[in-house]
């Protein structure tokens, strides 16, 4: 460790304060550990070629560089600038009342790590979040300084995602937005009540304010860009947010409604859902004997996908009466089972929007169907080639007026058949077991009667 320290100081001449004597390795351990609960790790949303002078480019689909032991994609160097914090959010390891090892990077250290990792192709770029050091402004200033150095001293053109710190001054946030590819403000908890309960120093208003600011920045930048092509771009990969799932008692319907209004009213690119991991003890926090609610998180992502790409509305998927997702079926399949009067649909005639709603037909397959049927009437064999999952779709479609087999269009019947056809794996994420499902079932979805009766 000593060796590392002296080396790093020789080579990179960090402006170290006495407090900053901690070796870089140790800081990295502390500050990546503290950042890992932030789920947004994608590097997607912006396509930027290198300019031939600096270093780096961006690929709009994003690139995963590794996968950690929890199976999640590693795309960005995800770190906090500091885990010091003046706030006391109950779900958070870094809260002021918690006794943990504290560390802070210097802007140069963050640059050193980013540049060296990027050149070796470990990462697509940087994800920089932070606890609140001294004040929101002070923290935002440090974040700005860091990415200013990356962009102008190191000529880094890879991906940068930074947090806007709620409460930070407007101009600081705006300045930062011209250097970052994506900015995000965490909603933290789905509702204002949840926030009040677990994050006493935060409120909905201070969170939504910078969100609106970034949105307005993006909109006015777009206008500017149509006039001046070379105008600097403001947060080109858009804005995202995340909320913690399962720390507070909101149901899925509430969560999806919030997500939907964020997409509609704030033009967010992505809403991320983070299954609550109880890292600290507090009487206000739920204990989760079955582990983090991973299946629930998975269902929310599926439903989110339906909102963004399949033209579904939250109210179609859930309601006050059925406020939580079905454990056994994905939200789209569940919708189809509840709306059997729409089916079966004719593959050679149905509109794109209707094709999107057929279980087993993804949006790519739907697009291919639209194209291919211009040349020839499609049959089931063609659908298979196109990539339609027939064992799911067959209950909902006809090809040239005929169904694949004679089947009843009846909820119980289809449900039974679909369940039989499912292998255990497709229940949810990877290898969730039956046991975990039933645990989850009683724990969170106790009220979801349809899910339970299906099991029997």
């Amino acid at each position, binding site marked *: 460790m000593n060796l590392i320290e002296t080396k790093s100081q020789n080579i990179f001449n960090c402006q170290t304060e006495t407090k900053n004597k901690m070796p870089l390795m140790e800081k990295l*351990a502390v500050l990546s550990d503290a950042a890992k609960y932030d789920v947004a790790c994608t590097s997607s949303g912006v396509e930027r070629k290198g300019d*031939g*002078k600096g*270093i780096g480019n961006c690929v709009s689909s994003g*690139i995963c560089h590794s*996968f950690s032991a*929890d199976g999640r994609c590693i795309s960005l160097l995800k770190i906090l600038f500091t885990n010091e914090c003046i706030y006391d959010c109950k779900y958070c390891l870094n809260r002021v009342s918690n006794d943990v090892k504290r560390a802070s990077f210097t802007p140069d250290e963050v640059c050193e790590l980013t540049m060296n990792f990027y050149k*070796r192709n470990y990462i697509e770029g940087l994800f920089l979040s932070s606890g609140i050091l001294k004040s929101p402004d002070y923290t935002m200033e440090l974040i700005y300084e860091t990415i200013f150095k990356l962009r102008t001293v190191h000529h880094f053109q890879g991906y940068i995602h930074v947090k806007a710190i709620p409460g930070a001054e407007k101009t600081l946030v705006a300045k930062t937005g011209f250097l970052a590819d994506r900015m995000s403000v965490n909603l933290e908890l789905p509702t204002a009540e949840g926030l009040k309960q677990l994050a006493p120093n935060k409120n909905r208003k201070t969170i939504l304010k910078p969100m609106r600011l970034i949105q307005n920045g993006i909109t006015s930048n777009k206008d500017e860009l149509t006039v001046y092509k070379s105008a600097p771009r403001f947060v080109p990969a858009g804005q995202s947010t995340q909320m913690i799932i399962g720390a507070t008692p909101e149901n899925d319907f509430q969560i999806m409604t919030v997500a939907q209004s964020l997409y509609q009213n704030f033009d967010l690119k992505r809403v991320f859902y983070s299954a609550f991991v109880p890292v600290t003890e507090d009487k206000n926090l739920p204990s989760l004997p079955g582990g*983090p609610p991973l299946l629930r998180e998975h269902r929310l992502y599926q439903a989110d996908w339906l909102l963004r790409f399949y033209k579904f509305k939250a109210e179609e998927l859930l309601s006050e009466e059925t406020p939580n997702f079905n454990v056994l079926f994905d939200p789209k399949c569940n919708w189809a089972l509840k709306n059997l009067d729409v089916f079966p649909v004719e593959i050679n005639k149905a509109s794109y929007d209707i094709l999107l709603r057929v279980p087993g037909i993804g949006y790519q397959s739907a697009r291919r169907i639209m194209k291919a049927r211009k040349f020839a009437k499609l049959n089931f064999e063609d659908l298979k080639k*196109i990539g339609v999952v027939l064992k799911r779709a067959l209950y909902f479609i006809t090809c040239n007026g005929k169904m694949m087999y004679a089947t009843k269009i009846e909820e119980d019947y289809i449900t039974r058949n679909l369940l039989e056809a499912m292998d255990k794996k497709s229940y949810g994420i990877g290898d969730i077991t039956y046991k975990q499902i039933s645990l989850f079932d009683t724990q969170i979805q106790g009220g979801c009667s349809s899910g339970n009766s299906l099991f029997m």
Partner: protein
Amino acid sequence: METVFLCEDSMEGIFTGVYDGWASKKGHANIKLELKQCNTFRLFAEYINVKTDAQKARKVSDTVKNKMGEEALIHIMRAALAVDDEKADAIYRTIVVGLALKYKGKVMDCLSNPGVLKVFKLSRTVFYEADHMKGFIRFKELQNGVYFAKIAPKSHLLPIISPHFADRLPNENWMIYDENRGLFSIHAKQKEWVLVEDEQINIDTINKISENEERIQELWKCFFHTVSIKERENYNLQRKNLPIRFRENVLEFNN
């Protein structure tokens, strides 16, 4: 009688085969393209050895681009980089179908044609592998300042991934070595990248890493391990996302 055109397993080789096959005017149904090394001689067939010719290949790729569209060309080129015994013929069939179509840019929609379907599938396979590789390649900094990476891909990926890194790291000297094919792609600072056949790789140079290298590697491994959430550990998912066969040259999976 069937005429078999034996081509070299390279993009240029296959495209030359397409040119010669077409020019022979024997009728598409009587023509078959095969790769030299995987051909098994049949009794009632005539064999023609295709001599790879850059100009002929160029003409084919231009025609495909102009008449069938850029997307079709990209699919076909990717398919040519795949490992598959029958790819040459599938490419020939796809071009036959594509040039007969009234509309430009629609050939990849004709998936009911087995040749097109094959090209589509091969292209997808190569695309996925290249996509993975763009993420999983690891460079190390050598003492002479060169960033060096070793890969062992199934498909011939260097032509796809090198432009990506040339755009990304224009100011570095870097080198990617495909150990399955004995091929290098080499990029000198501010120059175009080039493909070089096994020159004799100098093991000594490759093993001499820069002074800073080990420290950065340790920092990366440290990050890699701390960023995982213990409560969510899921090695099956990790294996699904990063298959074992990719891990051989990925730093954080090798100690």
